[in-house]
C-alpha cells in the first residue's frame, strides 16, 4: 500500500509542475505590456523599466518561472488590483463559502443519487428505473445557470406567501448578522496564527458557525438560503451518481455470489445491502471524488446566479474586471485541489480494492 501511495505521489509531481507552467504561460500570453496595463498607457520608459525591475519582469523567463513556483510554494499568489489585496487573503475569505455550497450539493447528490440508483437497479426495467434514468439524462443535460434562475423564479415568486417560499439570492436575510463562533466562545486567538486562520475559515461557513455558536435563528436563515443553490448545483453529480450506482449494482447483481446468497435463503434486503451494495460502492468512490471538480466549475455559475460571494463569484468578477491575477491564482488553487482530490480518490480506491495496488 505504501509503495502504491509513493508511486502515485511521484506521478503527480510532473502534473503539478505542468499546472504551474500552464498558468504561468497563460499569464505571459496575455496581449499587451503588463506595465502599461497596470500603470496606464502614459507610463514612460523609465517608469516602466523601474516597474519591470521591481516585479522581476526583466529577468530571464526561466528565472521568472522559478520565482513564481517559489512564491506559490510559500502561499503567495500575488495581488489582486481590483480588490488591492493579496489573492491568498481573498481566497481564505471566499473559499469557505464555495466549500459550504459544494459540500451541501455533494451531500444532497449522494443522499438522493445513491438510493435512486439502487432502486433503479433492483427494479430493473420497471417504471421506477425508467423514471430514474430519464431524470438522470435530463439532469446531466440541464444548464446549471438556467435551473438556478428557474428555481429562483418558482420558489421566490410563484410560491411567494406559501410555506415553500425560498429566498432567490444571498446567503442571509438583510439584518441577520453572524458572530464568529470563537468570539461567542470567548477564545483569544492571535491574528495570523494557524489556529486563528482555521477558526476564521470555519466561522465563515454560516451553517457550521451557527451550529458551533448555537445560534438557531441564523442556522435556519442560512439553511433556507442554501437550499436552492445547493439543489441547482447538485443536479449533475446527482445524475452521474444515480447512473453509476445503477450500472454498478446491475453488474454486481448478476454475479454468482449473489445467486449463492439468495439460494442459501438470505433475506432480499440483506443480499441487496450487504452483498451487492458494498461491492457496487467501489466505482462510486471515483464518481463522487471527480464530481467535486465539476462542482467547483458549476459553483462559478451557481454563485453568479444566486449572488453568493464565493470563489466562483469572485472569479466571475475577476474575469469582467480583467483581473488576471485573480483568474490565475484561483485557477492554480482549484487545479492543485483537484489533483490532490484525484490522488485521494485513487488511494481510497486502492485501499478498497486490493487488486489495484498489486498491479
Amino acid at each position, binding site marked *: 500500500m505504501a509503495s502504491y501511495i509513493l508511486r502515485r505521489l511521484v506521478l503527480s509531481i*510532473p*502534473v503539478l509542475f505542468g499546472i504551474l507552467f500552464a498558468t504561468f504561460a497563460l499569464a505571459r500570453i496575455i496581449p499587451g505590456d503588463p506595465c502599461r496595463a497596470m500603470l496606464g498607457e502614459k507610463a514612460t520608459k523609465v517608469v516602466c523599466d523601474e516597474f519591470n525591475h521591481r516585479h522581476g519582469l526583466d529577468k530571464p523567463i526561466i528565472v521568472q518561472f522559478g520565482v513564481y513556483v517559489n512564491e506559490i510554494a510559500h502561499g503567495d499568489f500575488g495581488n489582486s488590483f481590483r480588490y488591492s489585496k493579496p489573492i491568498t487573503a481573498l481566497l481564505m475569505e471566499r473559499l469557505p463559502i464555495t466549500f459550504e455550497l459544494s459540500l451541501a450539493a455533494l451531500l444532497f447528490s449522494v443522499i438522493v443519487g445513491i438510493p435512486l440508483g439502487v432502486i433503479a437497479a433492483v427494479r430493473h426495467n420497471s417504471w421506477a428505473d425508467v423514471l430514474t434514468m430519464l431524470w438522470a439524462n435530463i439532469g*446531466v443535460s440541464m444548464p446549471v*445557470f*438556467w435551473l438556478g434562475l428557474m428555481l*429562483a423564479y418558482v420558489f421566490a415568486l410563484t410560491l411567494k406567501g406559501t410555506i415553500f417560499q425560498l429566498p432567490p439570492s444571498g446567503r442571509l436575510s438583510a439584518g441577520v448578522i453572524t458572530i464568529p463562533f470563537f468570539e461567542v466562545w470567548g477564545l483569544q486567538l492571535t491574528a495570523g496564527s494557524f489556529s486563528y486562520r482555521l477558526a476564521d475559515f470555519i466561522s465563515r461557513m454560516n451553517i457550521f458557525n451557527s451550529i458551533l455558536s448555537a445560534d438557531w435563528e441564523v442556522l435556519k436563515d442560512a439553511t433556507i438560503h442554501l437550499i436552492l443553490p445547493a439543489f441547482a448545483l447538485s443536479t449533475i453529480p446527482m445524475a452521474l451518481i444515480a447512473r453509476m450506482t445503477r450500472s454498478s449494482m446491475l453488474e454486481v447483481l448478476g454475479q454468482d455470489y449473489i445467486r449463492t446468497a439468495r439460494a442459501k435463503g438470505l433475506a432480499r434486503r440483506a443480499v441487496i445491502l450487504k452483498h451487492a451494495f458494498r461491492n457496487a460502492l467501489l466505482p462510486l468512490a471515483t464518481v463522487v471524488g471527480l464530481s467535486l471538480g465539476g462542482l467547483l466549475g458549476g459553483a462559478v455559475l451557481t454563485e453568479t446566479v444566486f449572488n453568493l460571494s464565493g470563489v466562483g463569484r469572485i472569479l466571475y468578477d475577476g474575469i469582467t474586471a480583467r483581473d488576471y491575477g485573480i483568474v490565475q491564482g484561483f485557477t492554480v488553487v482549484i487545479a492543485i485541489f*483537484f489533483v490532490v482530490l*484525484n490522488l485521494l480518490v485513487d488511494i481510497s480506491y486502492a485501499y478498497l480494492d486490493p487488486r489495484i495496488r498489486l498491479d
Partner: protein
Amino acid sequence: MTAQTTPIQKLDSEALSLDSVSLWQITRRRLFRRKSSVVGMVILAILIFIALTAQWLAPYSPTLSMLDAKPPENIGKRSAPCIYLLGCSQDQPQHIMGTDGNIRDEFSRMLYGARLSLMIGLSTVSFAIFVGTVLGALGGYFGGWIDNVIMRVMDVLLAFPSLLLAIAIVTVLGPGLINALLAIGIVSIPAYARVVRGSVLSVREMDYVSATRALGGNTYEILFKRILPNALTPLIVQGTLGIATAILDAAALSFLGLGAQPPTPEWGSMLGAERNQVFTAPHLVFYPGLAIMLTVLAFNLLGDGLRDALDPRLAHVS
C-alpha cells in the same frame, strides 16, 4: 429433428446471418429499437431542420429591433408572448415568444440560435477529435518519450475542471465566440487522445499489423488503414457525447459574457443578457435554457444509444 429449432441452432443461424449484414446495419437496427435514442434522434432531426431553414421559418431578422420593423410596431421591451389562439388580443403584435430587452422577436432569435448551437458543437468536437487523434495516434504508435510527453500534457489538461480551464483560456485570449470555441476545443482534446491511444496500443502488436509491415506497408498505411479504423467506434460515441458537453460549456461561457457577444443570437448569451429580468420577463430566460437542455439531451441520448449499439459484446444479443 422436429421443425422447432433449439436455442443453439438459433444462435448459430443468427451468427451466420451476420456475415451478410454490415456493422452499420446492425447499429442502425439496434439504435432504432431503443426508445431513448429514437427520442434523441427525433429532437436532433427537428433541430437540424430548424437550423437549416431558420431564415424562412423566422418571422423577423434575429437582430432586427421592432422599432425598425416595417411597418414599425408599437410594442414594448420584454413584452410577454402574445398568441391570438391562446387568448391574446388580435390587434396586438403577435410574438410567439415575446420580445427581448432590445425589442427583438425572441422566437426568431431562438430559431437562429439552433444553427449556432449545432455549429458550436460540431466545430469544437471536430477540432478536438482531429488534434486528439493525431496526438493519441503518435503517442500510441511510437511510444517512448513522445508518448510520455503527450500523455503528461494531457494529464495536465485533465487536471483542471474543464469549465474553469476554458474560462482561464478565454480570459487570456479575450472574450468572443471563436476564442470560446477554441478554449472548449482545447479542453476536450485529452478525452479523444486517450481513446485513440488506447485503441492503437491494443492493436499495435497484432498479427495483421505485423503482416502489413512485413509486406512493406509504410507507417502511413499501417496507421491510417490498419490501426486507426479500430478507434472509429469509440470516437463516434465519445464525439456524440462530447458535442453535448461542448454545447453546455459554450452556453455557460456565453452566459458569463465570455462567449458569443450581443447581438449574436446565441442561447447562452441571450439567457445571460436577460438573467436579471427573470422575475419580470421569465420567458426570456425560460426558452433559451429549455432549448439548450433539449439539444444537449438529444446528443446525450443518441450518444448513449450509439455506445450500446456499437458494443461488439452485445453483437449476438439483439
